[in-house]
């Protein structure tokens, strides 16, 4: 799966050919950025990770579009047209796509609106809700992506290779998962790292 030779310095590796770093892209769709914050919670282990990977599109780099990548991490579910577009761009460019966190895995808390009518929600939030001034209107700017009727987990839109649940998954879980994957192993989370909450 991953290029094993890139994982760590091999005693047989030629010093003239430094291993290619894996390219990693990350994005937050309908999520709260909690998974990205948890990603940063791997703390000082970010430094050895950066020996192995370089970041493409990510909130960490502010690159706007995803180029060819080895690993794509998707935080958040799919709640609007732009999310669909970005998710498809990731799928087209990433060899391995990972659903990161509860929203990407099962829609998460945003999906709690799924049994309600979208039109009623928009009315309530922008026009008739408590404390709104008279004349308040539903935003209608052509730059705003159109919301979908329901929030969907990412696997309902594109093929996903791996799932890492949690709200958010802990820094330790993200670290264990990524390092196992980069080492070419099938990631496995035991008791204490596998959480849905």
């Amino acid at each position: 799966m991953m290029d094993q030779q890139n994982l760590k310095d091999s005693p047989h590796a030629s010093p003239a050919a430094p291993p290619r770093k894996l390219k990693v892209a990350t994005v937050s769709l309908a999520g709260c950025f909690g998974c990205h914050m948890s990603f940063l919670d791997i703390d000082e282990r970010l430094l050895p990770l950066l020996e192995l990977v370089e970041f493409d599109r990510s909130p960490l780099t502010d690159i706007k579009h995803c180029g060819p990548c080895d690993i794509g991490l998707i935080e958040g579910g799919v709640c609007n047209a732009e999310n669909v577009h970005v998710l498809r761009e990731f799928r087209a460019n990433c060899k391995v796509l990972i659903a990161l966190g509860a929203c990407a895995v099962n829609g998460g808390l945003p999906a709690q609106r799924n049994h309600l009518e979208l039109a009623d929600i928009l009315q309530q939030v922008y026009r008739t809700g408590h404390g709104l001034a008279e004349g308040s209107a539903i935003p209608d700017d052509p730059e705003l992506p159109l919301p979908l009727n329901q929030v969907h987990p990412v696997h309902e839109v594109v093929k996903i290779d791996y799932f890492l649940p949690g709200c958010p998954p802990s820094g330790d879980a993200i670290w264990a998962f990524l390092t196992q994957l980069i080492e070419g192993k099938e990631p496995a989370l035991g008791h204490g790292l596998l959480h849905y909450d």
Partner: protein
Amino acid sequence: MNDSFLLDGEDIPFTPGQTVMQAATAAGKYIPHLCWHPDFAAHGSCKLCTVKIGGRFATACTVRASAGQEVENRTEELDAKRRTLLQLLFVEGNHFCPSCEKSGDCALQATAYEMGMLTPHFDHFYPDRPVDASHPDVLLEFNRCIMCELCVRASRDVDGKNVFALAGRGTKSHLIVNSESGQLADTDFAATDRAAEVCPVGVILKKRVGFAVPIGRRTYDLKPISAAGTEGEREDAADKTALREKEAG
């Protein structure tokens, strides 16, 4: 012949009349289950406890143990089927663990951890199941119901109240409350009822006790369900076995 059978190659003693589940639990062995509880008659509906006996599938909670049986339990084949059953349960309801007070104490969640379930896999139903907050002391959150009928059995067989029942068929099946209004407040249900304690998921929740134990220190945060979840049940089953033996003289 001794009264024992093999469970994943280990000798498990049993007393005549015990099911495979009762004997395994009394011996401290974990067979995954959701609708079975030692205090109530076996229901055999969740199918999580499906094992292979002599190469054929059977539910461990309903099949009686017999001498010389060879029972397969924690094999990759059976755990994979259990994972699929759990995935179906997760997509049929609305299981949002991060917003559930039962998280960490939930048998559905903990069993899914035990089976290594990383994704619900199937498309979600996202059903519309309004909550019933009418009762002064208890909240009913139907979104999390897995229709194990433990509350039905507890209310009927222990409390003598018949507060709960299942209605509908197939994907329309759902838990109902036995009152003219359909509201829990219009029944004689009490927070001290056995039925208020028995829900394995977060449907029947006592009001005003939320987060008494913080997340991270709850039952299955500390131990996996295979080690912790059936502890009380094991003691209970052992007590009952002793009682049965005493009564039998």
